[in-house]
């Protein structure tokens, strides 16, 4: 589904990604872990098409298409979803209206007819339960005045509504208490399917107790330095990122 080859990217002349290689197949859940500044969020942003990042080398193909050629909205329509680390507050734009515009933009791209207001509301009512989100939030402005936990749950609610092929969760666990973490994880797990892939970007192993990954990759200094199964996350939790750095220094 997703093939990243030797991907290099920079922000303001500063090199952040220094050659990422990663293959993600449908149905898989990949966790990307790493210390602060290792490039985790940059990787998520580059995949979603954030313009602040300059891709300086390498390639990304998504279902056979050159992803880097596509505008952010085209990527979303092709089935990429980014759950933001810091969801944006948009005063004056109604949550439901915004989401219906998004759902219909994606449906249009797939050659499906617009969803009527009735169908949309019905679907939203179902999905909102999954995330235990207060339905009144849907009629407020996008993320405006939402608590940190509500914002993160709203991200996963949007994911459920938009039905992506590849979901990228950028530190969705940060700032969540254990209850919210469980709700969010439950929401993500409910969306796991053989057709869908998930990339979970996180600093902490804790989330991976709930969203159990098939693969864990450790990102350090802009490269994937170690890959393994879910047990790698536990090892990291126990030994800290220092362990990886030491191991790398030893083999260097």
């Amino acid at each position: 589904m997703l093939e990243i080859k030797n991907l290099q990217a920079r922000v303001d002349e500063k090199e952040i990604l220094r050659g990422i290689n990663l293959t993600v197949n449908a149905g898989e859940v990949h966790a990307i872990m790493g210390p602060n500044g290792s490039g985790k969020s940059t990787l998520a942003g580059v995949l979603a098409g954030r313009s602040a990042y300059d891709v300086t080398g390498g390639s990304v193909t998504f279902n056979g298409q050159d992803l880097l050629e596509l505008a952010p909205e085209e990527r979303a329509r092709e089935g990429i979803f980014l759950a933001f680390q810091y969801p944006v507050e948009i005063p004056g734009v109604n949550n439901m209206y915004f989401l219906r515009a998004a759902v219909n933009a994606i449906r249009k791209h797939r050659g499906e007819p617009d969803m009527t207001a009735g169908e949309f509301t019905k679907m939203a009512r179902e999905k909102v339960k999954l995330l235990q989100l207060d339905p009144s939030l849907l009629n407020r402005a996008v993320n405006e005045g939402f608590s940190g936990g509500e914002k993160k749950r709203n991200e996963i609610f949007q994911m459920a509504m938009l039905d992506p092929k590849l979901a990228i969760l950028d530190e969705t666990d940060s700032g969540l208490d254990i209850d919210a973490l469980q709700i969010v994880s439950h929401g993500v797990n409910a969306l796991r399917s053989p057709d869908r892939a998930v990339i979970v970007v996180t600093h902490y192993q804790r989330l991976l107790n709930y969203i159990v990954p098939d693969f864990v990759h450790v990102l350090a200094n802009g490269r994937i330095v170690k890959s393994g199964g879910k047990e790698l996350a536990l090892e990291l939790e126990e030994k800290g990122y220092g362990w990886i750095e030491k191991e790398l220094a030893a083999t260097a």
Partner: protein
Amino acid sequence: MVDVSTTWRSQFEAQACANAPEWLTSLRAKAFARFTELGFPTRRDEEWRFTPVSPITETIFTASTQTVSAEEVALAPFAEIGGTRLVFVNGKYAESLSEVRALPKGAIVTSIAQGFREHAETLEAHFGKYVQGENHAFVALNTAFAQDGALIIIPRNAIVEDPLHLLYLTVAGDTPTVSHPRTLIIAGENAQVTIAEVYSGIGEGTTFTNAVTEIVLAPNAVVDHYKVQAESESAYHVGVQQVQLDRSGNFTSHNIAIGGAIVRNEANAVLAAEGGECTLNGLYIAGTGQLIDNHTAIDHAMPHCNSHELYKGIIKGKGRGVFNGKIFVRKDAQKTDAKQTNQTLLLSKEAQINTKPQLEIFADDVKCTHGATVGQLSEESLFYLQSRGIGLEEATSLLTYAFASEVIGRVKIEALRDQIHSALFLQLPAAIRPEA
């Protein structure tokens, strides 16, 4: 070349003033003399620095006697908002197109031409008593030429439930046409009224609307006023609105400007007694070929008055905007609470705004704040919308709409609010419309 000022003079001398009361004839003569002395402003004039009016002052305009059918009226923007409607065609009252519904006893909603005949005493007491024509050539010109417009008198304790719609239609002709509409609104003690003063247009072609509105509030009166300027993109519009508030009067104004080539709106209010409350809000959208200038002045003359002001501008293409917000707090006006906010959204690199808050405070125990921001749409918000599949143009449109909605949301007349929505979305790229 024909001398423009000679044309104004010959038109003034030729205008029919039969049966005009003496005070009015004399007021007009004084006003025209003052206009002649002042001459039109130029960019050397501080108040007109960013607003060149030479396209107006160098054109020869004539009054128009054109008539329009009810069907044509219905097609004009903001022609229908329901309820009582007075229609003016190029400044002249069109009785057959107007409809006055049931009003509280003693309320007068009519044309000012009729007012000169039937309510001469009231007019003599109020007409031209509030607006400052001494130093304003356009106001002086209006006073000299104003023959018609709306007269609204709401008696003491009367409450008018439905909005009164004043529809000033500018109908373009083969040659440039001018009108000088004049509105006088008098709200008695404890009276309450909502008024939508709409300047709309039919046809393309150069037109010039030179409007003056005077609004006077007796103690405790509540006036909710809307001005919509939606004339054609070849229209020139200068509109001066002067409000006088007596004790505990409450005045709210929403000034929506979306049409016109050169538009100058002045909204001035004097808080002349204690306890007054004045809100001036505005929203304007200027595109290529448009200059929209909003000048506001709130004069806190007496203590314990509040004023709130929120003006938002959206400038796209090569459009230009000007905002000047004056707040005076006089020596006696202790405990004044005044807040002014001006926000401008520039949607292109060529869009321009000149914005200037101007606070002059002579009292020491007051709270006055002002803030002006000029910016583009947030990149992060655009990316957020795009990352959900919404195209860049739609996202731009949606965020622009969101910026404007803070002002639109405060419009209490539902039909008007809906039409502002639609008009705004027609103006934006790839119109997408949230359902109400």
